[in-house]
Each structure stands twice: as C-alpha cells, then as structure tokens.
C-alpha cells in the first residue's frame, strides 16, 4: 500500500509559533513526496484537534502521520492513542520535536529556529516512510506487588493493595517496622502519637492474609519488566524464635554485656546487642544485632528461644509491580556545623523530639535542666555551599509544633527560633500563629549570614544579625541548641542500582513528571511513594502511598500486559556469538543460545528496553533495533545533513 502521509504542525498556543514560522514549515512539508496533507494546529493535543486527525485517518485521506510539536516525552502516548483510536497501528506515527528542539532552544533566532524545524519535520517524514505496523509484546502478569519499606507509606500502600485482592510482599530492611513515624511522639495536627498511628497500620498489615511481611529483608536482585519481575530478597534472621517469655527475654537483655548506640533514639541513649523493641516497634519480638554481638552466650543461658543457628535466607518471588517506599534519613550535621559534636548541648531536631518523648517530669539534657532552647533552622537544607539546595518542607512546621508540645509538657521553657523565614504553608500557619501568640521568639537571619554558635564562659551562645529587628545583633544564652535538620534520602543500599531508578540532583528518586505523574518512574512497573521521592509530611506521604498503590495496581489487575515492541533483533545468519552485546546490555537481556548447531545471541524481548547499547558494539552488524533500523536512521541523518 502506498504511503499517504499527513503532517500536523502544532503552534502550541504560541509556544512554537512565536519563534518558528509554522506556515513555512507546513509549506515545506507539503512539498515532500508521499505527503498528502499538511496542517497547522493551535494545540495539536486538544480534543478537537485529535478528532480532526482521527477523521483524516478514518476517511482514508492518510495512512501514516507526523506530529511536529513538543517533546515526545510529553505527548508521544497521546498521539499513539490517537492513531489507535483511528484504527491505525501506533508505530505508523512519527514525532518531531520542534518546541524544545527548535522554538525554545533558538528563541533568539527565528529564522534559524524555523530552518531547524523544517529539517526536523523532513527527517520525521523520511522515517515515517519506513513505518510499518508492529504488534506489542504480550506478557502474563504476576498478580502480586513487592512493597519495599514498611514505614507508614509502605504499610498504607500494602494494605490498600491487599484489600483490592492483590498479593503483597512487604519487605523491611530493619527488624522492626514503622520507619520514622514510630520514633515520633505526638504528631502535629492531631493528638495521635506516632506509636498509635503505627499500631493502627501494623494491625491492618498483620490481619491481612494477603500480605506477607519480611523484616530484616533486603532486595538484592531484580530482573524482568512490568507485569513480571523476578526479585531476590535476602533475609537476615532475628536469632530468636517466636513466642519467647517476656521475663526470660528481659533477663537475657539485662545480661548482655555489649552496649551500642541506639539509633532508635538517634544516639542519645544506648542499647544492648540483644535488644527489644520500643513500644511503637513491631513485631513484638527481640532481635540480636549480629554486627555487635560477641557470641559470649550469656543471653542463651537466660532464654531458651535464642537460636544462633538461624541462617540468612535468600528467597525468590515473582511480582507484577514494585512499589518503593524507602523514606528518608534526617540530615547528619558535620562536626562543627553550628557547634554539632563540638559543644555537648547541641543536638538535632530528631534527638530533641526523642528527648521530649523520653523525659517525664523535667526536660533534662546531660543531667542539667533545660529552660532556654534555641532552634537553628534549615540545617542541611537550602545550603548555600553544600549540595542540598532544596527546602526540606516538613521542618518549619514540625519544629514549631515540637516547641509547642514541649512547652505543654514542661513549663517555663523559653523558645528562640533562628529561622530563614518561616514556611508553615497552608493550615500549618496556625502553629506559627499559636507559637507567636505564646511569646515564642522568632528571629530571621540574612541569607548569606547564618546564625553562629559559640562558647562564652562555659555557656553556649547563639548569635544572629536579625532581619526582623532591623539588623540588631542578638545573642541568646541557650541551655540546649536544636539543629533543625532537613531530610535526605535514606541510604537504601543498592535499590536504585538494582531497579535502575534514576535520582534527581537532590538524590531523591525521580518521578516521570513532577506535576502530573509524581509516583511513576521511567522504569515501567516501578512506583515510588512517600519521602523517598522528596521531603513530605505524614499526610502527604499517605496520599502519595495511595496514589502509588493505584498505579501499581494497574500493572497487576489484568491477566496480561503489553510491552513496547521496540527491541533489538539479532540476525541469526550474521551473528557469530562473540558476546560483546551481552556485555554491553545494561539489563541482562542478551543470552547465548544454540540455534540449529550455531551459537548465537538471543534477546529476551520482555527484558529488552530498546536502549540500543548493543548495536554499536556488534562487530558484524547483526543487530537492528525495531523502528530504528540502520536504514531509517541513515535516511534521517541524510535529510538533516542536506543543505536547504
């Protein structure tokens, strides 16, 4: 069948037409062989324009088409869907990006931008001449989801998915679930404590027979694609059997001679090498921390459930989607940053929150009573010099809230907030209002002149050049200095490498589209939820968990899924199996097979992502990428290189 090509050139309102003479582009396209129609459109993506294209196809005017508009990243799927609705195969449409690549890149040179747009469209026309219908690859889906991280986001996602009838594997790297929320006392905005909330989530998790929870579990390998991932999980044992008696366990812990820093309390207390959960940490079984255990055997004598013979296990499971909810770490200040680890009464916000939680009658630090507290904001966030340029979002509200709660628990505290401009966005503004009304003092430093922490006569002094009082130098003699530390992505081991999940400049996981697709990633089938995507508070993390759950659900709710057929193809006649392609493939999609006595390479179509890495390394040119064959690419380059 002869090609009847339609070319649609989008003005993008005026995003394109302000710099590119779209009429000129249209006139040039119209002159190309096989082009039967060339139109400009105000917004090609608008519903009415889509209808127009569909009509042109259905009326038999065209049988393949080129859209010249914005980046295909934005609208390739939109126009592929247009093709399909019109009854055309979606690979019979080719996209030319004349916005990001022409109009926006050359807004200072309209003629140049137009000339480039003309060439880009001609190249697309050259490519669409080759276009043939190809069918997507169908795969059987695994009706199960792997959720990584059992903080509140992970648990919420897991229970929601399970309630939809999906099998869920919930894995947690630590031996206790609950993530950071377990560590918080009363949460802002309600009277609920972190423990209460975690208990509610945990009860939902354990009561659901469709959820299998693994603690001490880490993802170590993953292969496959959306709908069908094969993952390997390493499980570290607790070295304690279930159902041990409370009293025996208490004694076992008591006799353990090893004391280490307790991460749960952010290092302000110590724990033993065999340790129990805090009341907010589940499951309610103790664990032996083998990194620090000296195998002295004392605990074994007290409790018969201790079992050093338990072994690390590796299990393999098949899932259709992976939901990553690995959360955040509080920023750790450098030694000397605002006196941290230099003066003994400088602590971080998480430490302060634990301190308030574990102190009862009086607020004490290092045995001394605390009356005056100085909070230094934006530590590890909004850095002028460091890497963390971002605002950590949660900390202004959380700090003010923590100060209010501390004031309710311990009377006569004075609070001095050394801020860089308070960001209690939305309804959280009420905390700021409340604290100001209570007489808490808010000061603000200049952007390039952060507050200083120093020692004078054995006292810790925080000093600021304050914007709010007309550059007055103010000094506060503080019993306790709280560094309001921001969020950094939790050290997730190798998850980002294993899943090939890209991270942003801020090192948080990157979504596909910050505005419209905040929980999906470029790796189809892998979603992200909660603070691993960027700083978030609890409510925001739960919203994101539910959103990620519904996206993950869409990968497993049907029996089969279609994957892109843009994959590498091996010419069995040419291939001599040298193995170069297998080494080049970042997805392990290439294996060696024997075809009628000949050793050749073979591509696993469901694993291949069509990245093209294997093509240039083949010494005999035996590999072609579907829809990007050498012929196609050469023709396109030929057109682009032509003088106009």
């Amino acid at each position, binding site marked *: 069948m002869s090609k009847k090509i339609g070319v649609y050139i989008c003005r*993008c*309102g*005026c*995003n394109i037409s302000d710099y590119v003479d779209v009429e000129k582009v249209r006139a040039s396209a119209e002159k190309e062989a096989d082009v039967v129609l060339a139109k400009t459109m*105000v*917004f090609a*993506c*608008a*519903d009415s324009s*889509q209808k127009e294209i569909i009509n042109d196809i259905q009326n038999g005017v065209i049988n393949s088409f080129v859209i010249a508009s*914005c980046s295909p990243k*934005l*609208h390739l799927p939109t126009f592929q*869907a247009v093709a399909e609705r019109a009854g055309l195969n979606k690979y019979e449409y080719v996209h030319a990006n004349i916005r990001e690549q022409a109009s926006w890149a050359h807004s200072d040179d309209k003629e140049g931008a137009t000339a480039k747009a003309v060439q880009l469209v001609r190249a697309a026309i050259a490519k669409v001449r080759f276009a043939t219908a190809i069918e997507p690859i169908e795969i059987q889906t695994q009706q199960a989801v792997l959720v990584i991280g059992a903080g*509140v986001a992970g648990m919420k996602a897991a229970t*929601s998915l399970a*309630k*939809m009838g999906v099998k869920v594997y919930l894995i947690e790297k630590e031996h206790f679930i609950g993530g950071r929320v377990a560590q918080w006392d009363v949460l802002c905005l*309600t009277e*609920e404590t972190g423990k209460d*909330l975690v208990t509610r989530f945990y009860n939902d998790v354990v009561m659901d027979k469709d959820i299998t929870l693994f603690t001490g579990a880490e993802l170590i390998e993953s292969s496959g694609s959306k709908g069908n991932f094969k993952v390997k999980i390493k499980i570290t044992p607790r070295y304690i059997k279930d159902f041990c008696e409370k009293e025996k366990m208490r004694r076992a812990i008591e006799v353990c001679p090893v004391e280490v820093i307790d991460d749960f309390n952010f290092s302000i207390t110590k724990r033993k090498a065999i340790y129990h959960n805090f009341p907010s940490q589940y499951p309610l079984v103790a664990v032996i921390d083998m990194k620090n255990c000296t195998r002295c055997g004392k605990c074994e004598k007290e409790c018969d459930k201790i079992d050093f013979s338990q072994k690390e296990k590796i299990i393999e499971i098949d899932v259709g989607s992976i939901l990553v909810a690995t959360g955040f770490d509080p920023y750790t200040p450098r030694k000397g940053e605002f006196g941290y680890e230099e003066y003994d009464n400088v602590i971080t916000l998480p430490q302060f929150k634990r301190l308030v939680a574990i102190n009862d009658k009086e607020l004490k630090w290092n045995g001394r009573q605390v009356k005056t507290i100085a909070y230094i904001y934006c530590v590890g*966030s*909004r850095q002028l010099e460091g890497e963390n*340029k*971002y*605002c950590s*979002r949660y900390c*202004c509200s959380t700090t003010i809230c923590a100060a209010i709660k501390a004031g309710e628990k311990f009377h006569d505290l004075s609070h001095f907030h050394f801020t860089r401009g308070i*960001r209690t966005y*939305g*309804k959280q*503004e*009420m905390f700021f*209002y409340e604290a100001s009304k209570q007489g808490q003092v808010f000061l603000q430093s200049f952007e390039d002149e952060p507050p200083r922490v120093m020692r004078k006569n054995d006292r810790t002094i925080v000093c600021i050049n304050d*914007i*709010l*009082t007309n550059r007055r130098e103010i000094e506060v003699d503080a019993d306790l200095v709280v560094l309001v530390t921001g969020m950094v992505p939790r050290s997730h081991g190798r998850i980002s490498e294993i899943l090939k999940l890209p991270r942003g400049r*801020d090192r*948080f996981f990157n979504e596909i*589209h*910050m*505005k*419209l*697709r*905040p*929980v999906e990633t470029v790796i189809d089938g892998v979603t992200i939820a909660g603070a691993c995507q*960027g700083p978030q508070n*609890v*409510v*925001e993390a*739960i*919203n*994101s968990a*539910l*959103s990620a759950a*519904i*996206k993950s*659900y*869409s990968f497993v*709710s049907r029996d089969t899924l279609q994957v892109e057929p843009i994959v590498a193809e091996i010419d069995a006649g040419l291939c001599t199996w040298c193995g170069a392609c297998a080494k080049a493939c970042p997805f392990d999609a290439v294996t060696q097979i024997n075809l009628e006595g000949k050793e050749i390479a073979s591509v696993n179509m469901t694993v291949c992502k069509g990245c093209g890495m294997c093509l240039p390394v083949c010494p005999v040119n035996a590999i072609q990428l579907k829809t990007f064959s050498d012929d196609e690419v050469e023709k396109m380059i030929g057109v682009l290189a032509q003088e106009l």
Partner: protein
Amino acid sequence: MAAVEKLSFDVLVVGGGIAGIETAINLGNNGLNVLLVEKDLTLGGKMIMLSKVFPTLDCGACITTPKISEVARHPNVTIFTNTVIKSIKKQDMHYFKSLLVRNPRYVIESACTGCQLCEMACPVVVPDQYQYEMVGRKAAYIPFSIACPRVAAIDIEHCTLCGACERVCPPKCIDFTQEPIEFQVIIKAVIIATGFNLFDPAQIKRFQYGQAKNIITAMQMERLLAPTRPYNHVLRPGDGKIPDKIAYVLCVGSRDRTVNNPICSQICCMYSIKQAQLLMGALPMADVTIYYINIRSYGKGFEEFYEQAKGMGVNFIKGKVGTISEKENGSLILRYEDICTGKLKEAEHDLVVLSAGVLANQDATGFFSDDRWEKDEFHFARQNDLFFNPALSSIEGVFLAGTTYGPMDIPDTILSAGAASMEAIRYIKQMALKI
C-alpha cells in the same frame, strides 16, 4: 422542567478541575463507571487557565488538554457539564441518591461542530469570565479554544433573542426551547472535587483593586501570559502600555485575620515567582519586584526555582504593603514597610499584581442537607482521619480530592486524587462483601 431521568453509576465525581479529572481517569481505568459532573461549561478548572506551571514551566494548557481528552473519551466515564448538584443523600448502607440538574446550553451539543459562526454573528458583547473580564465575548460563545466540550453555548441572561446565531449555524443546532433536565442518579460512592475559590481583593479597600485601573490579580496575569492570551502581549489594562515596573503583592487575603483567613494559601509565593520569571522572558526590559512576608518555596524543586528567579534579577523585598494609590498617569504608589531596614518606604510601579489567596469552596455544604458533612475551622471539607485516610470526609463513602480540603498545588492535587480514587475503589469492594 422535563421529566426526571434515572441513571446509575458506581461513583459520582463532583467537579471537573484537575482533581476531578484525575480521579475519574483513575476510577475508569480500574473498571468503575463514573459520572463526572461540572457546573461550568467546560472541564479544566483553574489549571486550564494557567500560563505555565511551576517549577517545571510546562505550558499549562499542554499538560491539561491530554488529561481532558483522556477523560472525555474514556469509555467508563460519562461527563455532564453545565450541571449542578441539588442533593446527595445516603439511601442505605450501599447507595447514595443524587439529584442533578443539567442546565441548557441552548445548543444541541451533539450537533455543534464548534465552527464559531454563531459567535461571529452575535451582536451582544459582555465581559469574558474566562479571561477574567479583561476582554469581551459574545452572548453566543465557545468558552475558549481548548474548552472541552468545544461546543457553543448561549448566555441566555445577556442574549437578546435576536436570532442572528440561529440564522448562521450550519448544522442548525441552536435551540432556544431547551429546558433544564433533572436527573436522579444512584451511586455507591461520591468524590467531592469542587476545588477552591479565589479571594476577591476588592475586599481590601486600601489596595484599590477595582478602583485603580492598573491593578490586576495574579489570575489575570496568568491570562496575560498564557498562550491563548487576550491581548497577545503583556499590557496594562488601563491604557495598553507595556509595563516596565511591575510589583507583586503577596499574601493578599491570606495570613490575614482582618479578612478572616489566617492560613497561608500555599501556592501564591510560587505562582508569583513563576510569573516573575515568565515576565522577565516576555518583557526583558521590565523590572519585577515581589513584596513578601516569607517566601514559601517548600516543595520539590521549589527552592531551586526561587534561587533561579533571584539569579534572573527578580527583586525580592521583605515587606508588608500598607496602601496602594493611583497617580494621574495610571501608575501606582506602594507604601510599604521595608523589614530589612525597618523603614516605611514608597515605590512607584506601573502595574501591580495582587497574589490573591485560596478560599474554600463551600458548595458541598448544600449537597448534604441531612447527612453529617463537616467543615474545618477554615470552611474546607473536614478530613475525618487525617493520617490514616486523608481522603475520607466526615461521611462514609464520600471522599475528598484536591483543594476541597485545603490549599494545594497541582502535584499535591494529583496525589490527593490518587488517594481518593484508591479509597473509593477499596470502599466499594468492601461494601460489596457486606450484605
């Protein structure tokens, strides 16, 4: 009124802004039958009116239209525009009953081709609400070029019944005999996505909005900067001059007890910074100054975006604006307290943009006459279980999406819509098990 028509769906989604659209798509993709009800003539809410969006600077129309077109053609989604909800009532454990009235467009929707000939023929000109009254439109009109549905409507209040449109319409789809149609809809769950209202700055007399000609709201500036902009350039509305000293006044109607809105609107700092950046592009010679209390660039990529604006030369002045007064030449004098120096100062600008805040849309209160619909102290819908189920309202089976429950930007709206969808599906599944 014509006889009541009876329909049934799984879910009723009220509000066709980005929250309602995203929710309807999510639900539809998971096999639920959805009725999406929008009171306006077109889907899209505020988002479709935006120029570009922070912090990605994607063109607002370009990222909204595909969503709209996805929902519009979704086999599981039925859309009623120009429709109001009369009531929503819980009938029994499993069902709600809702009464809706679909108001007439006086145009046969299925026949209209959107050719705009009626618009050209119509002799009546009234202020265009979609361009925030900066230009006029006809009484017979299509809301805007990317409206969905892209179908004409007759503004019967202003129409003189001259019949000019009827005479030119090629498919003869103008129909003045149309009447409101009442529907009775049975549904299993409801999503409230009715969005927010913008604070009306005319309430603050000392800012002179509505009095001085060259003071506009940020939403009007969105229109001036949008691809489908009214003047095809950024101009002062007073005299058509290209402005070269533009001021932004932040927190207008937010963080302000005198207008009963003590909370922060969460989006205005960022949209103002965005507009400032766009203005630097559109008017390279112009000075842009932002008067703020605190800059709240808290979200992913926001702080970097703020730094970028500073780098581009946007002036940021920490200071509260006291009064704005108009000079004879149309320029404006801002009196403000410069916090960094502690002095009262004055500055002259030739265009002032008021970054008006977000207020609750309280329509839903009227839907649920005898059920327990609760609001928070700021009149937003109350979230019944904030941490555990943020999407849950005070009524079982009614879920919240988007700015219905508080100010938020587009990404947070998308997340809340995902949450509402997931909760609604789960609820329906669970209820199906109960007899």
